[in-house]
């Protein structure tokens, strides 16, 4: 029993890692730009395909592929900001619709480039850390968890300690008042979009070796991320991280001990329950909702 609990706990933390990376990016973009990026799951998917191309096909080192994926998807985010979020800034619904259109374009482009099939990425490492005879922790999953923790901690330090981090938070709280302090909305939007997209990309790159990569893999990720940010309180980065961890634990344990469909249902029921008790989400404040 203890073995199963340990393995499942590790799996839950692993799921929490990439879910948190995706959700935090989504919240950052929403906070600074006021738009919901529906194409966020496809940015995750692009990150995974960067691994397929750079690591699996071109045989470059895995870490190089992760760095390429992260940067590439960040740049795609910059392109999105320039191409449609900026022209549609005063029209959040327009931004949302444009991002749905872009999601379809990305899926189509990837399907054309790679074909609509499952890509299997060769494992990066098969090593396990043997705790006891029965408790064996795969090194790769541990590394993904560690990477997520480092990335989220860096983001936190950036937001709290640097001049641009401050600017981002000020912009998220009151864009006009921020503009009156000399903080350019275009600039904070670019930074938020680059970071948000890069986080989705790196999440996709980190998970690619453990899941089957396909052009439609963004769906389930974005649904989970939406649940997480709504329960956490849209606009709250801390909420997104905490709820990502909680949700991943519930979902993973229910999947392991019952099955995946029941886990999805439980997740949605939790969402419903939270929305009934606290419509602004657990960590949200009324004015940001």
């Amino acid at each position, binding site marked *: 029993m203890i073995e199963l609990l340990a393995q499942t706990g590790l799996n839950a933390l692993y799921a929490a890692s990439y879910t948190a990376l995706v959700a935090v990016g989504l919240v950052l973009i929403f906070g600074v730009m006021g738009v919901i990026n529906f194409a966020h799951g496809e940015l995750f998917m692009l990150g995974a395909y960067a691994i397929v191309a750079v690591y699996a096909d071109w045989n470059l080192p895995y870490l190089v592929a992760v760095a390429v994926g992260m940067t590439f998807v960040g740049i795609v985010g910059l392109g999105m900001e320039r191409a449609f979020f900026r022209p549609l800034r005063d029209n959040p619904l327009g931004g949302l619709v444009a991002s749905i259109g872009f999601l379809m374009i990305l899926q189509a482009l990837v399907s054309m480039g790679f074909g609509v099939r499952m890509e299997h990425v060769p494992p990066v490492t098969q090593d396990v850390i043997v705790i006891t005879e029965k408790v064996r922790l795969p090194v790769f999953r541990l590394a993904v968890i560690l990477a997520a923790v480092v990335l989220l901690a860096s983001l936190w330090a950036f937001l709290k300690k640097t*001049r641009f981090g*401050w*600017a981002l*938070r*000020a912009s998220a*709280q*009151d864009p*006009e*008042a*921020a*503009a*009156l*302090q*000399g*903080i*350019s*909305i275009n600039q904070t939007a670019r930074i938020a979009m680059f970071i948000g997209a890069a986080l989705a990309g790196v999440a996709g790159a980190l998970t690619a070796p453990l899941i089957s990569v396909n052009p439609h893999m963004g769906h389930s990720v974005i649904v989970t991320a939406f649940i997480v940010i709504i329960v956490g309180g849209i606009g709250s980065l801390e909420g997104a991280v905490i709820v990502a961890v909680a949700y991943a634990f519930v979902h993973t344990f229910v999947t392991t001990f019952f099955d995946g469909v029941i886990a999805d249902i439980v997740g949605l029921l939790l969402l419903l329950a939270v929305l009934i008790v606290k419509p602004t989400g657990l960590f949200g404040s009324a004015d940001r909702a």
Partner: protein
Amino acid sequence: MLLELRAVAVAYGKVSAVRDISLEVPDGRIVTIIGSNGAGKTTTLRAISGLTRVREGEIHFAGERIDNLAPDRIVARGIAHVPEGRRIFPDLTVEENLRTGAFLRREREAVQRDLEAVYDRFPLLLERRTQLAKTMSGGEQQMLAIGRALMTRPKLLLMDEPSMGLAPKIVEEIARIIGEINAQGVPVILVEQNAELALELADYAYVLETGSLALEGPADELHDNEHVRAAYLGI
């Protein structure tokens, strides 16, 4: 002339908010714009600081045209705007709020000196420097908003109803501070519904009525003007 508006008009969609506004702010002075609700005072300030587009006319600041520059470019040229309703950043601390005012400034030491000067002027803010701004009272928030604007090192300070919603004692305090800031060489455009206070502080005054200038003159003359007394001073 430090600031000059020439026949400025602003509209929200198809609805005209202000038209044919021409006004001047000489260096070193306090100029006030008074008027009742919806007269267009806020709109005029927003046009100056670039938050709202200018439809017609021109705005010149320190010899250069600034109408329709982005707000951050206008701050960079030295116009600070303490907006209506204070608009401090609720979830930043007091000190973080003040430091956002210095966002464009790279000289660390000068920024640090200005920060200390703001704390000297508002000792209350020093006591609360690590507190979240949203937990402060209205008067404290107004002082924070003024302090934040001073951190930009303004060559001109725009203030939109700094007395709004504050107790008489705090209003007096704010008035004293505005006088002090001006005495130290910063020209001010003061927008007020509290005409008594505004005319007392200002050198020169403009009266806005439903989007156009109705009257202008030295503040003490307007203070004695029949129409102003009846309409704005309630005498």
